[in-house]
């Protein structure tokens, strides 16, 4: 059965990838995030710009391409996301 992912879950997946699953220390490229988080290019571009504007991700210019790293605020958000995700699961819900 195909699992439906909420917008919040996709954000959680993107942040988790930039925290736990980086290709190198500079950060993750958009292509890498598309593959890991399984989101289309147009959608991930919108999400990434929102996450950068909210201070959850840092945009790094590396060798002529943009890479994304999780910020300290992003780490705190991810921690809160995991805890309250568990809270919502108790009620049979996903956040």
């Amino acid at each position: 059965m195909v699992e439906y992912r909420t917008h919040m879950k996709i954000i959680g997946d993107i942040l988790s990838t930039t925290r736990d699953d980086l290709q190198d220390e500079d950060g993750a490229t958009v292509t890498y995030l598309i593959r890991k988080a399984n989101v289309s290019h147009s959608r991930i571009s919108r999400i990434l710009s929102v996450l950068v504007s909210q201070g959850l991700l840092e945009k790094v210019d590396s060798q002529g391409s943009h890479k994304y790293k999780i910020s300290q605020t992003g780490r705190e958000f991810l921690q809160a996301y995991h805890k309250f995700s568990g809270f919502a699961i108790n009620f049979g819900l996903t956040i």
Partner: protein
Amino acid sequence: MEFLLENILNLVGFLVGLIIGIVSIIGYRNTGSPTLFRLAIAFCSISAGFFVIWTGYMVEDFVLKAGHLERWIQTLGIAIQTVGYFFIAFSHSIKSLFPKSRYFRSIGIFPLFLVSSVQIEHIFRSVSFILLAYGAIETTLSYLENRNKGAISVALGLSLLALGEFLGWYSFVFPESVLYFVSMIIKIAGLIALFIPVSKIPLTKIKFDESFD
């Protein structure tokens, strides 16, 4: 004895609802999740509903000393609780509860003006029962999917609240029987079951918003 149990039930309901509501608000403030926002509304409403009835009993006992609770206070409290139960059910994607036609929506309100407050209380209790039963079934289905132990506790809690609500409604048929007493015991057990998984959420390491400090 019934008065004491009624007080315990409403106080437990108020506190459990308040704690779960506050945890949901903190979660919403930290993540912006609409699901947590709906849960916050649900449990704050449930807490407020129990608080209204508890306050009514306190005022009656210490100030008015009339020997019975004003019917409209009971009805108001149950109505506020029903709003909370609706939001729990709504979180499980109830989208067709209200009639879609504007005509049906307008006449749907009419019965509330045509019946006495006792009958309104019956309506709210039966609606609460349906919403709670729906929430319990959905939570049980969720448990079957992800096998989260907390979900089974919440499902049990919602089931007990639904059963308590049903017995509370049915006790109007047999007013002098033990049914209302049993319904209160069952509802207290349901509230405790709801609280168990929430009490295990570790909130200590979460950096709260500054407004919560």
